[in-house]
């Protein structure tokens, strides 16, 4: 029997680079294969190591990986690998199953780079607006300079109710100011029991957003979150991402909130 070596990465050509901010770029990588939004790849730079990066966009022969420059691997990606290839292995994780959200009212709440893993879900329902009853997106960033996927956000507005907010902005800016939680009580939902919500972002943002959703009457089993942990091997072996009996790289990173609320470190 031919054994498969899941640890050896494969080279993937960088087809395009979209610069969002000084420290956040989307790398469009050549890739063909089955993939779901919310899954992730281990991006590898020899000598520096690997980083788990969520898939932020899916095309026929490419995937988008939105990378934030926050560590030694991502520093190296930004400095030395522009216009070349990256080594990848994956996809790993369960990802978002869009079928779970069909024919329902969908609320997506994303904070900062948390928009990356859910971008594919929003894109899907933007292109298939009849597949959901309606879609509402609240995305929050620290300042206007930190906004990701601005062009996409403008496109989504054609079919979805999109609220773009920033934590801080000067008086001349036209942006909504405030945390994403500020806009949750005002969501107009026809049938809360038939509303599904996805929340992805920094831990504090997710905690308070979920609380706000529960407060307006969304059942907890209708809420989905994506967990962040050190996912070193992606294969359920290395143990770094384990929380209780759950391996985030295998069983997640996407969890229904009924499970997600039990994942306490």
């Amino acid at each position, binding site marked *: 029997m031919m054994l498969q070596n899941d*640890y050896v990465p494969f080279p993937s050509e960088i087809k395009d680079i979209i610069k969002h901010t000084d420290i956040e770029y989307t790398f469009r990588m050549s890739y063909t294969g089955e993939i779901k939004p919310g899954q992730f790849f281990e991006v590898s730079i*020899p000598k*520096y190591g*690997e980083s788990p990066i969520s898939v932020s966009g899916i095309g026929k022969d490419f995937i988008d990986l939105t990378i934030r420059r926050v560590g030694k691997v991502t520093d190296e990606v930004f400095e030395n690998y522009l216009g070349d290839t990256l080594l990848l292995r994956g996809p790993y994780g369960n990802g978002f199953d869009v079928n779970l959200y069909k024919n329902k009212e969908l609320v997506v709440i994303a904070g900062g780079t948390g928009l990356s893993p859910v971008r594919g879900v929003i894109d899907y329902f933007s292109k298939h607006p009849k597949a959901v009853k309606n879609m509402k997106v609240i995305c929050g960033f620290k300042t206007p300079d930190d906004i990701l996927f601005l062009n996409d956000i403008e496109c989504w507005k054609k079919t979805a109710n999109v609220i773009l907010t920033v934590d801080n902005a000067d008086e001349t800016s036209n942006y909504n100011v405030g945390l994403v939680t500020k806009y949750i009580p005002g969501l107009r939902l026809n049938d809360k029991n038939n509303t599904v919500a996805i929340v992805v972002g920094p831990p504090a943002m997710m905690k308070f957003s979920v609380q706000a959703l529960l407060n307006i009457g969304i059942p907890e089993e209708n809420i989905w979150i994506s967990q962040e942990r050190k996912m070193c091997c992606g294969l359920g072996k290395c*143990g770094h991402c384990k929380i209780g009996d759950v391996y985030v790289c295998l069983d997640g990173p996407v969890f229904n909130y009924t499970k997600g609320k039990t994942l306490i470190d």
Partner: protein
Amino acid sequence: MGYVAKNDILDLFIAQLTKQYLIFAPKRFKNGGIYSDTDCIRYGEVTSIDQIVFDEKSEYSFKETVLPVIQTLFFFTEGSTKEADITQKEIIVFLRSCDLHGMKRLDDMYLHNGPADYYYQQIRSKVKFVLIGCEHSFENCFCVSMGTNRCENYEMSIDKSGENYRINCKNKDWKKQLSDLNLAEEPVAPSYVTENLIQVSIPGNLEFTVAQSKIWDEYDSRCINCGRCNFVCPTCTCFSMQDMYYSDNGKVGERRRVWASCMVDGFTDVAGGGSYRKKNGQRMRFKVLHKVYDYKKRNGYHMCVGCGRCDDICPEYISFSNCINKLSEGMKEVSK
């Protein structure tokens, strides 16, 4: 059936085995202990029966024979990768019942939790086990409480009894080799312990809510997060990935995995400064509940095999078995 042999005859048998196998067993490393003038008993390659330590517990488990402390996964050469070679020789490991039960835990983690691990799978397919019988319990052992004091899935068992070695052989090829040495057959069964000085009791009502108990707080100050308990444990499976480059040629290097510990700093660090379980008590809670609660939830049986090596090795005299026995008190506290 089995055989009784003296060491000179057994050495002939071992010499035959070494043609086909690498043999690993607990071995004495003179002055290799953590204190001056002390020895260390750990696993190493042996070529004669006298090199095997039968009367002491090994400080480190058999684990490194199937899961090397540092294992090269592949080499980077300019623009390409080359998988590391894995030993072609078959392997025999001499180990005790608790460790053979530990092997089942390693198998479940590396072969069945997610996709099968390429490197582990290859080594594992080459390994055969020789059970070392336990005539008596060693310090800190609690295998009877964990149900790991007996096992059947060995190729051969061996007990040292005075000058003689008592062998129970299930492997057909080895049986023939032993018969060819003119050893008379007689009934032999491996010895095993039926009681330990230390007993542990895992409460039947154990829930994750015990994480809220104050029992973990004492470890904030007592534990020094050295991670030794993880490294001696036959069931700890975590590792980290590392890249290293050869200084002579900066374009050639290797990616490897090295054992990791959930008790040491940095284990949960994520890019951007995030970190989980910063307190040592939280790490102790994570480890203990993994061994006696959540592993069972996932796999149907407890992870800890009761070898007691974590208690033997801890420089702060923290007792894992004591901690397990505090869990019922912890459950009472959180159930109030």
